[in-house]
């Protein structure tokens, strides 16, 4: 809580506000002008079919791909043109789809990379050590393999490492792109336990997840993205009960 951006805000202002966001790949418009908000302390889920624009939305928020139009506000500040590498220092961190771990570094080194954005705080070794221990409690497998090169981890273990590395940055807003991908059933349970516990500890979450049932059970609020447009929104519970959502995303065949 040492960041200048954690000064008290007007509580009704959204923590993250996305306004008329558009993303294009050549001639293809992946995101067609969407607006949504994430309030402080909330967990918000973005669900939708393959190719609906979920990952494009997250990547454009964090500056990994350019925005064709629109604005993004984080804690009242316009971050639309802020470079991606500057965002973790402000408390906004993403776990990308496909993990993006440093394969030629050890697991421990990957975790420490997560603290690079903590500036003055990074020097406090005791705190960093405690955070590493916390990750090892979340993911015992990472502890077992801490000295191995990250590239030798299995796909699912890399997913755990990507999550743990992001948590090492002590995010105040965490963007998760498919945190359950490649994980065994028991680890899917675990990763959602971790999501709930960091949410309870005060982290705000924006979650893209193909396991729509689990995502909506966990989320306070959800948005449904279809072909680059938001077509439905509501509380996680209300979306879970929506027949359209059940047919399109929860795999329930009409009987």
């Amino acid at each position, binding site marked *: 809580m040492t960041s200048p951006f954690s000064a008290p805000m007007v509580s009704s202002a959204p923590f993250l506000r996305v306004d008329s966001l558009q993303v294009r790949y*050549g001639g293809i418009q992946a995101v067609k002008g969407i607006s949504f908000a994430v309030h402080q302390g909330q967990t918000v889920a973005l669900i939708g079919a*393959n190719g609906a624009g979920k990952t494009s939305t997250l990547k454009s928020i964090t500056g990994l791909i350019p925005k064709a139009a629109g604005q993004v506000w984080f804690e009242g500040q316009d971050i639309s043109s802020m470079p991606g590498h500057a965002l973790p220092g402000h408390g906004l961190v993403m776990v990308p789809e496909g993990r993006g771990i440093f394969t030629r570094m050890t697991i421990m080194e990957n975790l420490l990379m997560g603290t690079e954005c903590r500036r003055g705080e990074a020097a406090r070794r005791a705190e960093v050590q405690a955070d590493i221990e916390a990750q090892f409690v979340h993911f015992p497998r990472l502890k077992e393999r801490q000295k191995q090169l990250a590239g030798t981890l299995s796909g699912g*273990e890399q997913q755990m490492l990507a999550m743990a590395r992001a948590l090492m940055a002590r995010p105040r807003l965490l963007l998760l792109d498919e945190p359950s991908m490649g994980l065994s*059933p028991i680890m899917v349970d675990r990763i959602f336990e971790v999501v709930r516990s960091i949410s309870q500890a005060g982290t705000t979450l924006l979650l893209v997840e193909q396991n729509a049932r689990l995502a909506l059970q966990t989320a306070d609020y959800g948005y449904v993205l279809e072909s680059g447009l938001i077509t439905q929104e509501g509380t996680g519970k209300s979306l879970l009960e929506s027949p359209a959502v059940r047919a*399109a995303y929860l*795999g329930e065949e009409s009987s």
Partner: protein
Amino acid sequence: MPDAASLPPEGTPILKAFGVSKRFGGLTALDDVAISIDAGQIYGLIGPNGAGKTTFFNVITGLYTPDGGVFLLNGQAYSPSTVHRVAEAGIARTFQNIRLFAEMTALENVMVGRHVRTHGLHAGVIGAVLRTAAFKASEAAIKDHAMQLLQYVGIDRYAQSLARTLSYGDQRRLEIARALATEPVLLALDEPAAGMNATEKNGLRDLLRKIQADGKTILLIEHDVKLVMGLCDRVTVLDYGKVIAQGLPAAVQSDPAVVEAYLGTQAHA
């Protein structure tokens, strides 16, 4: 679509492997693994993260050299020494971390898979340089076949799109089409449903059943319990490189060791 006449009759073993071991330094990734997959089966390989599932795939497809093991494909001993020989022998696979030719079109990706089965003077470099009539005819046939495979997996509308622009789920279907283009006797799929929602997984389930009905044998790594249990004829569970359970899905699902190591609360999914 596959030529049923060339496929082995149902019930005969397609892949038999036993005594399979693989070490990485001090880590034993596979420890005396044995598996026998019959023709026409959909066979599930499941287990905790890091159990050795993908390592097993890499061994049988020639990406890793095993430290031990005997391998029989379609009744004949084969040495999983190099990837292209394994593809020729009849195992094709997809990858958990998708490995398409990103800057080629979807159609071109499938055409590459087809080249495993096209031989002779006119199909190779000489034909390509001289642009012989036979070469052009061969390329046209490959293109037609590749297009049919894109239709078969349901993504023909993206034939001319660059592979990297396809969504994750469609890239997985494209990998399946490219693998099918090699006319495999065994199709090995590493987490084909990753990145798909439940409705899309139902679509994938239907596709895999269609491939099975067309006479192919499938080996499947997958974490979605509902998909595995609903689709697979037999299941093997790995943990720390060892087989901890093997058999019918229902029996495996209620095995206490499997519940503890792998399924957790989803044991009753």
